[in-house]
């Protein structure tokens, strides 16, 4: 069993090492003489080789051994780092990844011994040094010979199979120590409270205050332990871009800024695919071909810049390219042509509104469908996925200069800021005259502003068209919805003089939610509802308030749909995508 634990560690460390290897090798291509970088790649390979030998993985061992020798020649200046060599190195990394995945899944290296790759490596190596080839070739032979004996040892390790790397997290020991200290203090505070049964109020108050402080610090500490730098995802991008650029015959460089920006692990997982899609888009439609760039007086190398930074409890991610930009006119005509937007509506659109059309399902401006993108299933999926985690996507673009996609996501999912509101009703027959107060939480991400109308002023600013009410809000008509009516609560507040409007945004539509009382904003812990209530789309979950009572968290898109402010048939649009498009689409 102990052996299995070590094997797990080996897999995690190897996967970490490989992610870095990808990035380092691509970096190495740009700076072929950077000795530090060569050293780092060399060390990673060497560690991998050592560990493979220890566990008896002979295929892995022999592959990494030749690759290491090859790199040794580069380090000793016996050969130059050619693009072919870099490609070979990268495919070596791929093979090592495949073998590791096999080990993780079934406990052995698999049937394929990757003779072809080893031959290519040996060939490359021989061209560098005839003398050292003999040793390497012997190594290859020995590797194959041992391959069969490795079976039983490896099987031992197969007990714990699944996805060791994505279900574990590395935590700073200092942080762990701090958490342990806090738990110690928590126990002390608890003792203090337990023993203070007879003590006076002041002592208890002091103990409670301490408890309050400890809990908050503990909470922050635990959240910190879940944080990971965004670099974990970004590490994969330079390699992906290199491959993509080669596939479409362009020259593209990737720059990363703020790779140390931290995000909750669940969010990192959630943005992985959308991010990859956006980068792919930038490579494929953003950056022009070398000739086109030179013709416009730009450098033949396109640049993709990824930036991450914190801003007010959110993390901003920007993906910019210095390509051709997006032409709003073309987007408009495409949208009209596909029947997504009426012609007259398109004519009135501002440039910004037109650019945002790229997030509509079924819109792609690429003239031809390439294996990389252009099927028009991408951007709306990106938007849906980002919004699912409480984020927002925006796009800016300047013709000929480039375009930028900006993603704003919360740092963590489990705890979000929210506004507590209440409505009063007389549902409870038992309690009679006293009206019930129902509390709900509106996620801050949906919140635009709060409006309070008092006295006769109120009448003037509310307009009615039949049943529907509107509030004149900055020159626009803001549809109003009464939360109590949407939720079917018999409202008991008589026509009072005060009207509280929470202006919210759901699926790009702003509307006013009328509530009886606005409480305060607070950080809330989101808890899921039982599966019996999953079908109720108007709630995103529930939370426990300071007084121990439960408040439901409103799902604003669901509420807007109930109030008939946004169209009902969102789901059916998604399903109407052709299945083959969905399956083969550029996304994922």
């Amino acid at each position, binding site marked *: 069993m102990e052996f299995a634990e070590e094997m797990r560690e080996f897999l995690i460390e190897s996967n970490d090492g490989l992610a870095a290897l990808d990035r380092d090798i691509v970096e190495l291509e740009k700076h072929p003489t950077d000795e530090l970088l060569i050293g780092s790649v060399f060390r990673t390979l060497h560690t991998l080789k050592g560990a493979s030998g220890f566990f008896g993985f002979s295929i892995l061992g022999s592959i990494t051994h030749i690759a290491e020798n090859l790199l040794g020649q580069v380090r000793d200046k016996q050969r130059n780092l050619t693009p072919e060599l870099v490609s070979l190195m990268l495919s070596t990394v791929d093979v090592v990844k495949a073998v590791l995945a096999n080990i993780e899944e079934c406990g052995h290296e698999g049937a394929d011994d990757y003779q072809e790759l080893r031959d290519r490596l040996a060939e490359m190596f021989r061209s560098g040094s005839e003398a050292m080839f003999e040793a390497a070739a012997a190594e290859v032979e020995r590797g194959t010979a041992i391959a069969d004996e490795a079976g039983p040892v490896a099987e031992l390790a197969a007990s714990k199979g699944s996805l060791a790397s994505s279900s574990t997290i590395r935590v700073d020991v200092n942080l762990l120590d701090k958490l342990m200290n806090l738990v110690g203090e928590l126990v002390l505070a608890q003792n203090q409270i337990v023993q203070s049964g007879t003590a006076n109020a002041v002592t208890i108050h002091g103990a409670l205050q301490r408890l309050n402080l400890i809990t908050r610090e503990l909470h922050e500490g635990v959240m910190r332990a879940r944080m990971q730098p965004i670099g974990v995802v970004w590490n994969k991008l330079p390699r992906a871009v290199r491959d993509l650029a080669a596939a479409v015959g362009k020259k593209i460089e990737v720059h990363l800024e703020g790779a140390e920006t931290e995000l909750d692990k669940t969010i990192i997982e959630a943005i992985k695919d959308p991010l990859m899609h956006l980068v792919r888009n930038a490579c494929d439609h953003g950056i022009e071909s070398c000739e086109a760039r030179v013709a416009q007086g730009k450098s033949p190398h396109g640049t993709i810049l990824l930036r991450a930074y914190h801003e007010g409890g959110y993390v901003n991610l920007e993906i910019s390219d210095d390509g051709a930009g997006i032409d709003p006119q073309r987007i408009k005509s495409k949208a009209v042509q596909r029947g997504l937007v009426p012609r007259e509506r398109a004519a009135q659109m501002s440039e910004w509104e037109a650019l945002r059309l790229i997030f509509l399902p079924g819109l792609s401006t690429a003239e031809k469908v390439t294996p990389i993108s252009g099927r028009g299933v991408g951007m709306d999926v990106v938007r849906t996925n980002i919004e699912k985690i409480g984020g927002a996507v925006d796009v800016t673009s300047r013709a000929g200069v480039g375009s930028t996609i900006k993603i704003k996501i919360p740092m963590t999912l489990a705890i979000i800021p929210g506004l507590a509101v209440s409505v009063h009703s007389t*549902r409870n027959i*038992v309690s009679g005259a006293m009206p*019930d107060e*129902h509390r709900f939480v509106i996620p801050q991400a949906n919140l635009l502003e709060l409006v309070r109308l008092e006295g006769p002023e109120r009448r003037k600013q509310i307009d009615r068209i039949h049943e529907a009410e509107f509030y004149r809000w900055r020159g626009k008509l803001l549809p109003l919805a009464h939360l109590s009516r949407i*939720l*079917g*609560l018999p409202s008991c507040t008589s026509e009072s003089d005060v009207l509280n409007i929470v202006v919210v945004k759901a699926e790009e539509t702003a509307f006013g939610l009328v509530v009886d009382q606005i409480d305060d904003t607070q950080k809330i812990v989101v*808890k*899921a*509802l*039982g*599966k*019996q*209530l999953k*079908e*109720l*789309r*108007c*709630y995103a979950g*529930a939370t*426990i308030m300071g007084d*121990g*009572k*439960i*408040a*439901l968290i409103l799902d604003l898109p*669901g509420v807007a*749909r*109930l109030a008939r402010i946004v169209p*009902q048939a969102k789901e059916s649009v998604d399903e109407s995508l052709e299945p083959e498009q969905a399956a083969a689409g550029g996304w994922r």
Partner: protein
Amino acid sequence: MSAADAAAGNGVGIRQFATFRVADMFMGIELARVQELLRYQEMTWVPLAAPMIAGLINLRGQIVTVVDMRRILGLAPVADGEALPMNIVIHSDGGPVSILVDEICDVLDVPIEASTPIPANLPPEQREFLEGVYQLGCGLLLVIRTERILAIDGSLITP
């Protein structure tokens, strides 16, 4: 079940039920499914949920859906002045769920031979939620189908 069987002695043909009362019905639920019993808890009502959903309770920081057994069986709600209902919390893959019943009774060991098919003249909406009927000395024990209770769709309307 195996632990329950062993506790019941010779272990063959005995089932253990946590029994409770709903209106004038004597009912039981597989003991192994029961997580804990709770007195009446203040509930948060869920607007737009089906009447079967009594509300949500805070069980040591966990949010638990409470289903009302009276409503499930199509019975009238508890009248004013009657004793407050109690919670039987059962565990499921999707987290705990609480069943609101009038009164919690004993744990009973029941021989399997006492089982009879559900009488045909019970209303279909009640039959749906029952697994079987056991003839006991003290009357008829109606055993509920836990899986069916867990599978309740509590939404009244789907937006």
